[in-house]
């Protein structure tokens, strides 16, 4: 399932996939795959992304 909320949050911060990837220390492909719902990140990476985008885990990763 695509993670639209992550994509929106990233765009809100005016970050490209590559820029977000650099900030959290992964590759652009990984961010791309997370947004496409094709890769499940570890909790550590989720937290790192949340901190970078000033969001909570629930806001970005909890599926209703």
């Amino acid at each position, binding site marked *: 399932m695509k993670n639209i909320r992550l994509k929106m949050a990233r765009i809100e911060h005016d970050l490209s996939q590559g820029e977000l990837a650099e900030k959290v220390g992964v590759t652009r492909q990984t961010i791309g795959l997370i947004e496409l719902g094709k*890769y499940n990140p570890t909790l550590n990476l989720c937290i790192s992304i949340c901190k970078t985008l000033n969001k909570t885990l629930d806001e970005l990763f909890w599926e209703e």
Partner: protein
Amino acid sequence: MFGKNKNVDERVKNLQNKIYKEMYYVIIFACLISILIKYMTMGVPLQNVTTEWLILLISSVYYFIRAAYLGVFTDEVEIHDSTSKVKLSTKYIIFGVAVGMVIAIIFGVNSAFNYAESTQQAIYFFFLVFFVSLFMYALFFAGFLILIYVLAKKKSDQVVQRILEDKDSKW
């Protein structure tokens, strides 16, 4: 700032580990094929296949030591025993006996074909060599594997215990 360079993409790392795992299987398979081909072309002397046996032995021993000293072996046993009806320790014994049996059959057939002069003698040689080899090798391999299992489990349990105690004291 400097720490950022140490970051490794977890997805890439996972995929690389997957490749390493497959690579290990390829190497093991190549060794086994090499042993088989050498047995068929050069006969059974052990010195022909020493390198292959060493690769198989050293890689297995290395895995057991690392798994024990990182405490992963305890997790492995726990996961296996909670999902399987047969305990891992029992499987080790069964595997040891199976390996012993395969070797016993090979030796039995070898004796029957190479040393017997009649069919009756061939059958007698086969069973004689088979049972003696089975007794020796099955006992050896089962004992060896269970010994490795017990030692690795003991060490791994100690490591896990120490890690958990460290974590408790920090919290």
